[in-house]
């Protein structure tokens, strides 16, 4: 069932990785500028901010595989006034264009805070629009606060973890972790994961199937169909949250005890475990929308 939605899973994760990574590194850049100077801050954060573009492009290309007619994709922004999908595609496109312009300006030595800020706003707007697509469907599991917590939570977690990996592998993490620059965000990532777990505890009981109630509405509603996927949703979410927790805790451990164990490879593996966890959680999320005609 999940195979059908692979393009959406990849698209949503890539857009959130790009937005999170870019936003987090932009924040780090501003903070580091005060501590180590502008040039050094740019040198440390630039590789990650540059990587956000290709990651975003990969996600955008993956989304084309979801369409029945990819050649008509250019029409997808025509209904921006009412369609959240149109808005998401619009903001994703703006995010990419701004990233490109900011990158080209950076190559020429013109790093403008305003351009970086606008790029961050466009990226986060794309994520919010993406979550709103599912929230507005009214389907169980999607039309809940959990959708926003999940999508924005993944964005922040991806941002913190990927930025940590980039700074860590560039040898900067140990030095700056002493002043809490990287430890505090890692603790924030753990906190966000806890909030998401609590949201799931609230949400899962509402997905219980009640086939015994006989009514016209139950017969025709798309909701009971979605609830049939609840078992798969619960299983994938549980495994995904577990993987994410292990990965984030490992990242945090490496930041705290990194001076004892110098392991760039361990932190990369931890990030991959987080990514795997988020992939499973997102697969569970999309399983709720499955029916035989989709």
């Amino acid at each position: 069932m999940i195979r059908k939605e692979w393009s959406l899973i990849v698209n949503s994760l890539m857009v959130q990785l790009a937005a999170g990574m870019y936003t987090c590194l932009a924040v780090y850049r501003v903070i580091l500028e005060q501590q180590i100077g502008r040039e050094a801050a740019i040198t440390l954060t630039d590789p990650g901010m540059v990587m956000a573009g290709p990651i975003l492009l990969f996600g955008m290309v993956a989304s084309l595989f979801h369409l029945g007619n990819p050649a008509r994709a250019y029409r997808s922004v025509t209904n921006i006034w009412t369609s959240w999908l149109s808005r998401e595609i619009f903001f994703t496109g703006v995010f990419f264009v701004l990233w490109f312009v900011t990158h080209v300006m950076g190559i020429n030595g013109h790093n403008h805070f305003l351009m970086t800020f606008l790029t961050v706003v466009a990226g986060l707007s794309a994520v919010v629009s993406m979550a709103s697509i599912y929230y507005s469907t009214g389907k169980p599991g999607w039309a809940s606060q959990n959708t926003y917590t999940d999508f924005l939570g993944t964005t922040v977690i991806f941002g913190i973890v990927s930025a940590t990996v980039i700074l860590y592998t560039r040898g900067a993490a140990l030095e700056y972790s002493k002043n809490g620059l990287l430890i505090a965000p890692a603790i924030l990532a753990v906190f966000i994961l806890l909030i998401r777990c609590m949201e799931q505890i609230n949400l899962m009981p509402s997905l219980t199937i009640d086939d015994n109630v006989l009514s016209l509405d139950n017969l025709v509603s798309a909701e009971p169909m979605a609830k049939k996927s609840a078992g798969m949703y619960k299983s994938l979410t549980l495994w995904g949250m577990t993987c994410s927790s292990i990965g984030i805790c490992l990242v945090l451990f490496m930041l705290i005890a990194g001076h004892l164990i110098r392991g760039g490879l361990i932190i990369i593996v931890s990030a991959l475990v987080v990514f795997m966890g988020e992939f499973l959680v997102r697969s569970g999320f999309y399983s709720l929308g499955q029916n035989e005609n989709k």
Partner: protein
Amino acid sequence: MADKKYVMVIDLKLCIGCHTCAIACKQGNNLPNEVWWNRVMTFGGPTMDTPHGVFPNLKMSFLTLNCQHCDDPPCVKACPAEATYKREDGLVMQDYDTCLGCRMCIMACPYNDVRTYNENHPQYYLDFPVGDQSAKEQQKGTVSKCTFCYHRLDAGLSPNCIEVCPVRARSFGDIADSDSDVSKLLEARTHTQLLADKGTKPSVFYLI
């Protein structure tokens, strides 16, 4: 056309679950294999003709379901390409020539299985098209659904399902015209709309 507001009225007390409406729809619109725009369901379960209740007190009740052509259609709002649109006479239409195949309309619709996504090239049991020549051809990678047989309405005819119902359980007409059959039926009989709490104001009424 602007003053008209088409609605469908289905009498659940008269419906005998013969599936003639579903077949007429499929044949008249030349729908591909496995594609049904109009379905007949029973209360007892998803399998055809399943009674409900506890033996020996079983009862057979039927419900036909097609696109509800809502007054406030979430599918129209959700479509990113304006391929799903609403005509002035109330019909919710799907333009196959602009449809991206993103299936947002399916996700946004509160009703189950009133739309079909043609994932592959439409396949037919027969080598030649059947039904109305004016029915629009299905396309690969697009979503299709009941159109209230707009091509027949534009020619002054009723939808296929209305014409064939052997017990005359189905009526169709202009609710804006107080002398129409549908207006009189809705005035005289107790009726309901499916998932009315969703606020989409469906144009299909069920007499109960």
